[in-house]
């Protein structure tokens, strides 16, 4: 058991979700999930969770495939996928840094951590560096208020963070990209 916050899997390889449903193993796994839910329209959110785990993000073709399989209007699938902030319609970077912006983290200076990383990567929260190496995100509250400010680095929760410490960590990612 490790303390990970929904670490996004690596982004889809070239071709993304456009691959033919038959030839791609991930589609088979998605199919299994939909089958387990008996292709019920109300399993849409569960299916989107699985799809994002498998493909890293939700491309439009993938959403269309889900819409057809669950027999749900495409506009509703798109509406649901964009309503919930967990779902991403764009690929994420190789690494992700999620800065908790809950109240406890806020009063302990999380905003300064965000500004430091924004300045370092030349990006805003919610964006990915142009080289695709690092995505910067903010979270509502990850419930780690006892160790505020909390930062999730590639899925690992770290507590009592400072701007300098997080900058150092992210610099490592930007440097060699692995």
């Amino acid at each position: 058991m490790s303390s990970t916050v929904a670490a996004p899997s690596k982004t889809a390889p070239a071709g993304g979700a456009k691959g033919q449903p038959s030839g791609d193993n991930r589609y088979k796994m998605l199919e299994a999930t939909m089958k387990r839910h008996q292709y019920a329209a109300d399993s849409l959110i569960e299916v989107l969770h699985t799809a994002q785990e498998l493909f890293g993000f939700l491309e439009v073709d993938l959403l269309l495939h889900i819409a057809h399989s669950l027999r749900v209007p495409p506009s509703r699938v798109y509406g649901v996928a964009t309503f919930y902030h967990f779902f991403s319609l764009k690929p994420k970077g190789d690494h992700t840094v999620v800065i908790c912006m809950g109240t406890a983290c806020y009063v302990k200076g999380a905003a300064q951590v965000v500004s430091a990383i924004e300045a370092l990567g030349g990006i805003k929260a919610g964006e990915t560096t142009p080289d695709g190496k690092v995505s910067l995100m903010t979270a509502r509250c990850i419930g780690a208020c006892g160790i505020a400010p909390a930062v999730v680095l590639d899925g690992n929760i770290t507590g009592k963070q400072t701007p300098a410490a997080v900058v150092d960590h992210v610099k490592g990612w930007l440097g060699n990209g692995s």
Partner: protein
Amino acid sequence: MDLNDLLEIAEKENASAKPIRLRCCTAAGCLSQQGDAVKNALQQAVADADMSDRVEVIGVGCMGLCSAGPLVKVDPDGALFEQVQPQQCASIIASLNGGGPAEASVGSDTIPFFSKQHPIVLENSGRINPERIESYIAAGGYQALYHSLREMAPTDVVEEISKSGLRGRGGAGFPTGLKWATVAKMTAERKYIVCNADEGDPGAFMDRSVLESDPHRVLEGMAIAAYAVGATQGFVYVRGEYPLAIARLKTAIQQARRMGLLGTQIFESPFDFRVDLRIGAGAFVCGEETALLRSIEGQRGTPRPRPPFPAQSGLWGYPTLINNVETFANIAPIVTKGSEWFAGIGTEKSKGTKVFALAGKITNTGLIEVPMGTPLRTIVEEMGGGVPNGKVKAVQTGGPSGGCIPAAHLDTPVDYESLAKLGSIMGSGGMIVMDQSDNMVGVAKFFMEFCMDESCGKCVPCRAGTAQIHKILTKVTDGLATSADLDTLRSLCEMVKSASLCGLGQSAPNPVLSTLRYYPDEYQACIDGGATAEASA
């Protein structure tokens, strides 16, 4: 499975316990501070010292004092080690063998943080292994369910909960027994139970901790509720941000199913109950019950007007009982110890205990459980140890739906009515302590930004109103506002509060209204001096 089987499992579990037990916190707070490595190092040290025959290392749930994590507690002598590092583990094990004092900082469990607590919901937290159903059963688990199914009529159970005076722990404080009675009275071909584990208030992590530390307690409460109201299917709607809680719930559901404690003909009675998980996808508004139901149905999480209430028409139009995690966690002890025992704790209108998450500018951060009516000062100053190197300025309760209680009101007893009188709410239990360096206009803006981003966009007052309020607050903090803007701000807050469709919009202005009420000078200072008012670390 019957009572004897249950007792047998408990006996076997207790008999297999080794004389010395090291309890390691494996809840998210300690895990993020290398709690896992500490547990592994302790296990290795026990093996190295060849003491496996009489010492065991067990992973347990949250012990509460997150600021001193990772925590390790030794049974039976009671030593509590704080901020344990993996390299200190060998010396801790050696100390058990008479090898001199351990090279680790030793805490005390007699400090007010622990001694003033009254654990009911958290009684198993930090004691049992949340990943083993046997551990829960050894602590008396599932006996309340047996008692309900085999010795009580459904109406007796509802009656018992009503008499206990338990009120919903999700924030609004609606009487739980009344809600159960409403669902029980409905005639329908099926009914549902929903556990609201979409703990969204920033600064609150009580439900996360209960699910990570004692998941079976919640499942048992849901099963008792299902029996009482006549439901056969339950859902736990849990935040996607809580992967550990999700994993432990999954494990717990599987274990309970395998033992026949969930499923068909539970305890050889005609009662069937199935529980499934639904994972939230990052929308605060889904804590609102009608939005939560839409989300379980796979839709955008937009609330709808009530009535009809979910108790009458909920999931797929069927009567649905929705309670919060902490509410369900109170059920088994009430059934076991009786409503009178429970009603004897707390105040006249707020019975029992409440779990609070202490965070912010406070020495001891973590989780505490105290009787309702405990003065705020006891919680913040005695138990929490006050503000390190400073003074309390305000305590924020109820998250974005609550308000800021100034230090002058610290002697207020914490119960539903008293907090409401101060312009805040009990909420789900988040308590953020602020000190003199925190600017209250900045805090109000922080919460308004939260509500604006989390507004579902369905009703106009919340969608457009929160955006306007945020815009005015930005003008204030940028030093560009006039006194007229403050009047506009106030009137807009009143309208959004009265006219919004759901609880999110209706309570979104609370942080602004409460800071306007208690800290008007800080708003005025921004207008007079054009000062930038961002909260600073």
